[in-house]
């Protein structure tokens, strides 16, 4: 029954977007594409589908036919500096993925597009916001619709594409967050971690190693866990109306710029995507997130639970 309902939801979302797909022979300009749209464009040389999943071996054992694989641990980070992938390396990466200035890149992944959204944020940061889309529902919706997968590594012809000017202002830095905490900047802070982390009851979720010596949140931050953005059964984003209500109920209505953060900046990319791409709000992603902020000397925190780090 649940399954049937999720299929219905998928079908409705799909139908909405297939109208868009039918209207445009060229790739749609919307931030999201549906699985139907992707299916229709599998052979389109101007569309490049790329998987960005958390779990290893998922892509290899079955991916959307023709899709390439970006490994976020290797491809999308700078392994020496704590940073996102450098501009030079990102340029090489997308050249080898056959991306050109008229290519539409569709990202998708497991865990409700968690890391695919991180990938999308990096594309935006390097100035490719107009070219990148997310497959709404990611792997989950593809599998729920029993669509075929492939195990062959796709081969594409590399390009000489040069990255345009980036948009570094999509990224918040520690100083921006401290300014917001000190109320020196008129910015709303959005903490997308679990309520237990937000309240300071726990230092990090179970089984997670990256942590901070302090628990709690940035003073003034509003807590909306990232999972609330998606329909858990289909992995697809909730409707714009639902999302608008979700955020406006917590006093985020787009009137003030927002800085989203989590623990290491990945999950918050999904909330950043919702705010900027689906709701059209002004928002930045703070990828230093709690592992940087919570550990920073002199940065104030709010800890509702009052837990104290004792080294254990």
């Amino acid at each position, binding site marked *: 029954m649940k399954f049937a309902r999720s299929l219905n939801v998928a079908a409705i979302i799909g139908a909405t977007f297939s109208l868009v797909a039918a209207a445009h022979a060229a790739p749609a300009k919307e931030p999201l594409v549906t699985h139907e749209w992707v299916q229709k464009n599998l052979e389109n040389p101007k569309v490049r589908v790329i998987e960005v999943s958390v779990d*290893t*071996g998922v*892509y*290899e*054992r079955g991916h959307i036919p023709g899709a390439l694989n970006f*490994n976020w641990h*290797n491809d999308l980070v700078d392994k020496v500096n704590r940073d996102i992938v450098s501009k030079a390396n990102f340029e090489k990466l997308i050249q080898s993925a056959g991306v050109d200035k008229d290519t539409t890149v569709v990202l998708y992944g497991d865990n409700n597009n968690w890391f695919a959204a991180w990938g999308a944020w990096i594309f935006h940061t390097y100035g490719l916001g107009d070219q990148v889309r997310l497959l709404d529902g990611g792997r*989950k919706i593809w*599998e*729920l619709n029993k669509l075929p997968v492939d*195990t*062959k*590594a796709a*081969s594409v012809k590399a390009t000489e594409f040069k990255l345009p000017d980036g948009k570094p202002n999509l990224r918040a830095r520690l100083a921006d967050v401290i300014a917001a905490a000190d109320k020196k900047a008129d910015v709303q802070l959005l903490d997308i971690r679990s309520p237990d982390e937000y309240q300071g009851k726990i230092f990090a979720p179970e*089984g997670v*190693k990256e942590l901070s010596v302090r628990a709690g949140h940035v003073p003034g931050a509003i807590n909306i866990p990232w999972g609330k953005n998606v329909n858990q059964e289909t992995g697809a984003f909730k409707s714009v109306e639902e999302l608008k209500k979700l955020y406006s109920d917590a006093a985020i209505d787009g009137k003030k710029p927002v800085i989203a953060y989590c623990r290491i900046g990945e999950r918050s990319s999904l909330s950043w995507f919702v705010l900027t791409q689906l709701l059209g709000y002004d928002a930045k992603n703070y990828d230093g997130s709690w592992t940087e902020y919570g550990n920073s000397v002199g940065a104030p925190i709010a800890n509702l639970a009052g837990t104290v780090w004792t080294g254990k």
Partner: protein
Amino acid sequence: MSRSLSVVIAVVVVLSLAFANAALAGSAVENRQLAPSLAHGAIFGVILQRSRFCFLCNLRDYFDNRDPRGLVAILLAIAVGSLGYHVVLSTWLPNPMGGRLAPDAHIGPVGPVLALAGFIFGVGMTISGSCVSGHLYRLGEGSPTAPFALVGTAFGFALGFLTWNPLYVSSISTAPLIWLPAQLGYSRWLALQFLVLAAFAGLIGWYGRLPQAQPLLPTTTPVHHALHKIFIERWPASVGGAAVGVLATVAYFQVKPLGVTAAVGGYARTLLASAGQLPQTLHGLDGFAGCRTSIDTLLTPNAVFVLGLIAASFSSALIAGQFQPALPAPRQIVKGLGGGVLLGWGAMTALGCTVGTLLSGTMAGAASGWVFLFTSATGTLAALAIKRRL
């Protein structure tokens, strides 16, 4: 037990496996590894039971009676598996020299700790009478030693968790992950692999001696003859070896590399954690590919695999008249537990056993697989030599 009752029970077990598989096949997207895992486990159980694919028996057959068939079957399994892995790997990762390791393949850190773990595992095989996969399929044959050896293995795993951190910090952390295709490219790796396997097979065959052929049993019809060959007689070792190579490839392609200790190790880890004895951090452990243990869930793909293995081996043994349960003698209990502890410690420390580290490693082109092969064989033979003098 009467023959017809045995067959009825075996058929019921096989049907239950089929139903379980069908039920699992319909499970949620997140659990879709369960159905193929059950099938792989069941097929593995049948192969192991029918062809007596047991590392210790094969080594012992050779050194006691110069019978080379079992050892050659292991080499054949590696050869077939390497070919299969090559097909899969060259599709998934066309260029192995790009700085990335084969996804999920069991490529472990190569260093003195691996060598020691292999050696200890080999000693454990000799004492307990089999390796871990051997004990699992013998559980289905009613072996009186196997249950104790598996309990011992769980204890050994617990010990392994307790000794992991000092070993990791002093040695494993700096031990390299050597993936031969990354050094040589696929073609040269495969050529070298076949050369080494052929050289070993030649050496083993040169010194070996085939036992006298058994007289064929009188059979009535060709169909009866075929059924007898499949269900009653042991399969030729080489058939088992080749089948293991094919299954290893399929398992890697569909779910993950073959391995039998992740579930046992996972339960040991869970028990140790609930007793408050598990080190809070096991440095680097979960970052390695291998027979990974976890305390998350009870019904993991590997647990389903092992259940399938035991159930299929049980029904296969029943039909063949090889299900012979016996009450354990004190000596068997002691040997099972003692040898099992060594097996468990070795498998935990080496990130897998003769299946997960040796077979799945060598097939993928991991140097760690070859190190485990040599050191576990050395440990087995050393213990056999000592045993004979006692």
